[in-house]
């Protein structure tokens, strides 16, 4: 059995369809992704056919309404967690980040968009025919969503959009951008979400290709120069964009946690295999106590994170989750990942310093996990504020 399965705690919430889904996805990842990941990373992109393949196995549609081409009957959050875990097992986090980027860009349309927008966008994205990215972060700032400055000025039946967005995952490939814009006063009450067609005049984009990690996931800076967007592309109500933006954070953080946790297991697995193979001072590495205790400590942190993840997932399915718990879960997961990536590379030594090893790549992906989707500092801040507010 693969080491990452041996060290997975039994999960009381997962049933037979979960196990089948994991088995199917593993075959899909083993045949369609893992053998090509090194090439995709060097090429800085994913092949367009991957979206079609992912739609065939049901990955893109998971959790979306059946009426819009999704697959939701019988599925729950644990199917999503398994998807994040199995994709992370290829050892390149950029695959999930790019392939599943609609997971952050599409829900605002599904939950707040007009019927016409839903019908136009959602089925084709879920079928892998069109791509959509979420555009929030700006060159002037990211975490402080309330202060963003991209302007959408109303003129008759249109908005005139001016501004710039950066660090946009999937931004080069996207046909559509779910874009946070300022339509009113300063602060959270002047924000709206606007769907912008990437082909409109005045939209331009440049690649951000020199990155520490996630090489196969394209990242872009977007420029909007007097872009004319029809008013019916507004998602939800004008100046009520903040809620749709934060609505999805819980699920995004849960998926990021599952990805980071599985990446930590991959580090454990790679290091474990090496420690059993490599001989030093007359015995295998694993027989040296100083190395063995590294595995024990990695496992302690991995187990703690899984237990916490399972609890938060259960809370969400029961509708009783606290955003502070999910925010701190993400911190727990990325700190676990950071520790395991470090220890795995210490064990792998020179072998882990060279490219071509999963743990080496994951080591370079630690920061994007710990910063993207809400940095550790922002997560703790959110938890602290909520603790004060609910116990005042």
């Amino acid at each position, binding site marked *: *059995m693969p080491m990452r399965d041996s060290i997975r705690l039994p999960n009381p919430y997962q049933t037979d*369809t979960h196990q*089948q*889904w994991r088995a199917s996805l593993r075959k*899909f990842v083993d045949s369609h992704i893992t053998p090509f990941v090194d090439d995709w990373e060097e090429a800085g992109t994913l092949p367009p056919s991957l979206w079609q393949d992912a739609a065939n*196995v*049901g*990955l893109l*549609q998971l959790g979306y309404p059946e009426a819009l081409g999704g697959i939701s009957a019988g599925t729950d959050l644990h199917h999503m967690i398994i998807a994040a875990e199995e994709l992370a097992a290829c050892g390149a986090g950029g695959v999930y980040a790019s392939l599943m980027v609609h997971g952050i860009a599409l829900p605002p349309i599904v939950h707040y968009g007009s019927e016409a927008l839903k019908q136009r966008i959602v089925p084709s994205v879920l079928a892998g025919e069109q791509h959509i990215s979420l555009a929030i972060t700006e060159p002037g700032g990211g975490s402080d969503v309330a202060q963003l400055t991209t302007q959408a000025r109303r003129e008759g039946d249109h908005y005139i959009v001016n501004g710039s967005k950066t660090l946009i995952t999937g931004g080069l490939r996207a046909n559509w951008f779910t874009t946070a814009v300022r339509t009113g006063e300063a602060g959270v009450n002047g924000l709206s979400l606007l769907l912008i067609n990437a082909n409109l005049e005045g939209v331009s984009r440049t690649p951000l290709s020199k990155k520490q990690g996630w090489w196969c996931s394209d990242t872009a800076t977007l420029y909007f120069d007097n872009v004319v967007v029809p008013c019916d592309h507004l998602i939800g109500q004008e100046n009520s964009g903040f809620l749709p933006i934060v609505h999805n954070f819980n699920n995004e953080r849960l998926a990021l946690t599952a990805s980071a946790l599985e990446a930590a297991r991959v580090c454990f697995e790679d290091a474990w295999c090496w420690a059993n193979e490599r001989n030093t001072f007359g015995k295998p590495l694993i027989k040296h106590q100083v190395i063995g205790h590294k595995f024990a400590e990695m496992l302690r942190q991995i187990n703690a994170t899984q237990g916490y993840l399972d609890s938060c997932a259960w809370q969400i399915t029961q509708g009783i989750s606290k955003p502070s718990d999910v925010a701190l879960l993400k911190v727990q997961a990325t700190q676990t990942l950071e520790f395991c990536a470090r220890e795995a590379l210490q064990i792998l030594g020179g072998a882990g310093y060279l490219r071509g090893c999963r743990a080496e790549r994951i080591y370079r992906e630690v920061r994007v996990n710990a910063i993207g989707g809400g940095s550790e500092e922002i997560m703790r801040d959110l938890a602290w504020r909520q603790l004060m507010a609910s116990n005042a």
Partner: protein
Amino acid sequence: MKILVAVKRVVDYNVKVRAKADGTGADTANAKMSINPFCEIAVEEAVRLKEKGVATEIVAISIGAKQSQEQIRTALALGADRGILVETDTDLEPLAVAKCLKAIVDKETPDLVILGKQSIDGDNNQTGQMLGALAGMPQGTFASEVNVAEGKVKVTREIDGGLQTVALNLPAIVTTDLRLNEPRYASLPNIMKAKKKPLETVTPADLGVDTATRVKLLKVAPPAERQAGIKVADVAELVEKLKNEAKVI
């Protein structure tokens, strides 16, 4: 045309099985269980025949404990239409399995029965052949290619000297070898749909099958551990060791 496929619940091929300390069997407690790989190939072949328009219905059968339902559900997710579980907590020998299958063949009257050539737990390689004898049906074992046309099934068999092709009149029995096909993975919608497909449960007693064991298991022991090799300084020492220690020259 109706196809029957048999699927067995076995310890997953990735699991390293150890002998129980008291030698009464293999320790499979809490081990991950899966569909036998050769049975999965059988399901895949049946589904391909259905996709080609050759087959119209696929019935997946498993014989074993209640949990074998999971393996039937997997077959249903891959494309089988309905399932039959012959539920028994006894570990059946190939003859009893073949008798159960024979009873179901009599009831279902399939045109083709596809089975794995063996299961990776017992490695008996007997059930398909026994079923052929009991049901009086021709058999094409170790198939690496299967073609159905004009009331016959042409089976390319992997044999010691190479490949042998036989043509069998339908109804017939085919057992699969490793190279017959590469099984697909079930898509999420098909996993969900499989939950709603019919699954009937019967017992060996319902089928009138006597499940008494005929083979007595004496002992299960792990293979002897290999001794570590040694390095010799020169040819003289090598010859000396071969002569006096290994005693081969």
